[in-house]
């Protein structure tokens, strides 16, 4: 029964349990409940992945209304893999969420924070499993509204969390409006909201209306993906949200926006040579390269570790867009390898940063002085993640970069080859700021050796191990990505 309904349970479970968690008075119990629910959700997502691994597409009709009239949850390999990423990330973050809230959020507010966290998870998972474009909008709103709340809860540590949340609220709402206007255009000319159906009917629909509609959708998604120049909300949101929430957002929020680009690439965007749709190949590589460059350069100048990591994420999102823009099965596969690997690398770094914040009370670069002495494990994990971001061999980051560069090489796209290679150097510059701050800077007064709080060890350690493991044994990730891409394009894997 559970296996058959996993498609819908994976959304319903966190969605319905969120209000119940908010009712629990005791923050410790509420935190444990959030962890259990996230873990159960991860089990459901894993079930979905197992069912779809052979190429099966699960189609679940809500209320037994057949599509295109009713809402369809459509789970292919991409959706299942994304659901796994989201629920695993939530589980890992839930492990250290209660500890990282100590002293940052008052105990009375914590149950509501856990509830918002579960709602956010439900919204994000909803986006990836639904086959209905209006449903995507609804879940996007659920996740966005809960994200605004979560970011604002960082105000206990830093009041700037409030402006960060407000910025994101205004920009996010604008993006959602663009998205829904775009949907309206498509609905008017095609008469359907089911994404599979939309793809077929758009072929005969008026080209101009489609172009306008898909442009609106593109802008809406671009904002969520922190695409240059619509990235303004993102660094502050990551830096001032409670550290554990920042970790969750870094692993999931923008990744889901990239997912939306990939998902809609077969009907809203990009069919080379066809007028009437937003052309990926022309748009994404320039935007991606600009993000790669700008994100890396700004990261060199930041004064706070979390902002540094956030700007580095902009650069990495740029790399995903570049890969997507290279097109074809290989392009989508390269983008997915980057998406999953980056979630792991950056998740590990943000989790470690949360652990440092928990001990130090600050993530400013000066506060890192002496880190290699009093928190050697945390320092080691940060350096490992940093090396992966640079693209040092034997880390997942090297694999990510190599697939993109190799693809660009084979297409003789020298601009991308040069751009990606050169930004590695800027990455060295900002990663080495962390190394010098943690290893060489002399702290004002030596601290006793107190490494990661135990709650952080499992999540940060697992993500660190995966960063190394996927760099050496990269085959599973590459196979998964190319299978997903093949299924998306409709060629046999």
């Amino acid at each position, binding site marked *: 029964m559970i296996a058959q309904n996993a498609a819908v349970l994976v959304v319903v479970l966190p969605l319905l349990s969120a209000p119940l968690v908010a009712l629990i008075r005791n923050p410790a119990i509420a935190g444990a409940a959030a962890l259990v629910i996230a873990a159960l959700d991860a089990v459901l997502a894993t079930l979905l992945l197992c069912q779809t691994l052979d190429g099966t597409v699960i189609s679940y009709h809500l209320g037994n209304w057949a599509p295109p009239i009713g809402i369809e949850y459509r789970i292919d390999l991409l959706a299942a893999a994304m659901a796994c990423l989201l629920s695993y990330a939530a589980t890992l973050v839930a492990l250290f969420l209660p500890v990282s809230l100590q002293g940052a959020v008052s105990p009375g507010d914590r149950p509501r924070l856990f509830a918002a966290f579960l709602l956010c998870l439900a919204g994000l998972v909803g986006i990836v499993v639904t086959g209905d474009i209006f449903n995507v909008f609804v879940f996007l709103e659920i996740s966005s509204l809960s994200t605004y709340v979560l970011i604002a809860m960082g105000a206990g540590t830093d009041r700037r969390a409030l402006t960060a949340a407000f910025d994101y609220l205004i920009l996010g709402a604008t993006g959602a409006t663009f998205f829904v206007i775009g949907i309206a255009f498509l609905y008017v000319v095609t008469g359907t909201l089911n994404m599979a159906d939309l793809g077929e009917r758009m072929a005969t629909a008026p080209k101009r209306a489609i172009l306008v509609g898909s442009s609106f959708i593109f802008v809406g998604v671009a904002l969520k993906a922190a695409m240059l120049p619509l990235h303004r909300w993102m660094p502050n949101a990551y830096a001032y949200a409670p550290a554990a929430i920042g970790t969750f957002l870094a692993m999931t929020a923008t990744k889901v926006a990239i997912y939306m680009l990939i998902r809609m690439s077969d009907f809203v965007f990009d069919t080379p040579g066809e007028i009437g749709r937003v052309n990926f190949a022309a748009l994404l590589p320039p935007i991606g390269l600009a993000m790669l460059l700008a994100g890396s350069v700004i990261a060199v100048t930041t004064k706070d570790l979390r902002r540094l990591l956030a700007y580095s994420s902009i650069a990495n999102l740029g790399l995903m867009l570049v890969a997507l823009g290279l097109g074809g099965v290989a392009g989508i596969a390269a983008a997915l390898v980057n998406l999953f690997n980056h979630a792991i690398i950056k998740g590990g770094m943000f989790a470690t940063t949360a652990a440092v914040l928990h001990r130090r009370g600050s993530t400013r670069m000066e506060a890192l002085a002496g880190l290699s002495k009093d928190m050697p494990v945390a320092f080691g994990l940060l350096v490992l993640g940093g090396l992966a971001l640079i693209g040092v061999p034997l880390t997942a980051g090297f*694999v990510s970069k190599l697939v993109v*560069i190799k693809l660009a*090489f084979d297409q003789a796209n020298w601009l991308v080859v040069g751009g990606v290679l050169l930004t590695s150097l800027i990455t060295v510059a900002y990663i080495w700021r962390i190394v010098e701050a943690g290893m060489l800077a002399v702290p004002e007064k030596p601290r006793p050796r107190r490494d990661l709080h135990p709650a952080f060890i499992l999540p940060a350690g697992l993500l660190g191990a995966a960063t190394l493991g996927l760099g050496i044994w990269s085959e599973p990730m590459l196979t998964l990505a190319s299978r997903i891409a093949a299924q998306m394009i409709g060629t046999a894997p």
Partner: protein
Amino acid sequence: MTTADLMLTAILLPLAAALLIALAGRSPNLREAVTLAAAAGLAFTVWQLIAGFDAGTAPTIALAQILPGFTLMLRAEPIGLVFAGVAAGLWGLNSLYSIGYMRAEHAPRQTRFYACFALALSAAMAIAMAGNLATLFVAYEALTLVTYPLVVHWQTEGAIAGARRYLAYLLATSLVPFLGAILWTWSAAGTLDFTAGGILDGKLGDGALTVLLLLFAYGVGKAALMPLHGWLPAAMVAPTPVSALLHAVAVVKAGVFTLLKIAVYIFGIDVIGRGVGDVLIVIAAASVIAASVIAMTRDDLKARLAYSTVAQLAMVTLAVAIGSPLAIAAGILQLVMHAFGKITLFFGAGAIQVATHKKKLSEIAGIGAKLPLLMASFLVGALSVAGLPPLGGMWPKFLLLEAASARDLYLLIGCLGLSTLLTLGYLAPIFITAVFGKPGAEDPHALPHDDHGHGSGHLPLLALIPPVVTALGCLVLFVAAPAILRFVAPAIGLGVLP
């Protein structure tokens, strides 16, 4: 043990040693015992590999696949084994010297020092035994990263700036031109495996091959080809044993070794010899002369030696560029001979610093009287680096001259002759000043002598024995050079031995 086991042992033994060193940090004597035992074990392992090497049965060990076609694998071949032998053999001597030097200098962070040293050796072994360019690249990057803590060791402002420069040069070259050239090779040839005769002939035009060779020559920043040599003098901020590691044991050697390997197994010697390497000949020859001239102007002993390395190892690049079996043989011999000569000189410069606390040519007048044995070894090392018989350093210069004359490169012959004079010009003053110079007034800027024993003319035995041994090595190598040539001859197609 089988050859495959020995190869894995050579890489894993220093790695395990690094772990043990880190664990033994509380007890310095135990920690150093681990280093010395590992060094002895590694030297034995590599010796077994060399003694039992048979081209016909050399196994390939596949380790991992990073991308389809970009795999990690090991395969022993003669040039790599020569490099491995030099690095493994000198590690033990360098460690003995390190113990003398680091303890006399009361250096902090010694556990990190010895652990990173062991890691560097592990990376060097992986470079030596890499079976394809992918593996070599991975190990090359690892070597850069694990030597960073060694270069920054003193953690003073100057050390941090120097180490930053070290890292910037090495990563910038390896992440852009080197990786770019590897990808280009991969695209063009469809493989990255080291193959006898090369993999690129007929896949790219000669013009493209020339560009590719230059990308490699500058991408392998560790080879310190001018004008990308700046990291080497900058890295002189490191403790002297680290300088010895960089110059003689692993790092610059790994760079020129990589070039040799690329020339022999990626391009093919003949391909380079038919004109692809001509641009590089000019660059390398200019690098030899320019670096030698700059060396003459340096007052700091270690800076002088650093520029000397830039000049001497540009000769290996030159050998690669000439592209004949004879020239490659000269390059391989230069790798060995320079290692022994230069490590003697660095041991000497470091010992002078430990014993007298002096670092500059202008300060060392007359110190030779206190350190006769040390200065004698220094002289032997200097003469070997310059290429005079009866020392090992003569062979590569001699073969290089022959290779140049075989291709009628008369201007190059002139350059090589000039470089020998220049080498004497920048090394002889050190010896002459130290031995025959009259001690002048005490330099007011000199650091005050302290009461730990250094600065007082006392030299720990452990800082004296290694240079004496390596100086003797220079003598032995004069006799042993033909054996090395016979060992590598089949791999590089060297027919009649001179």
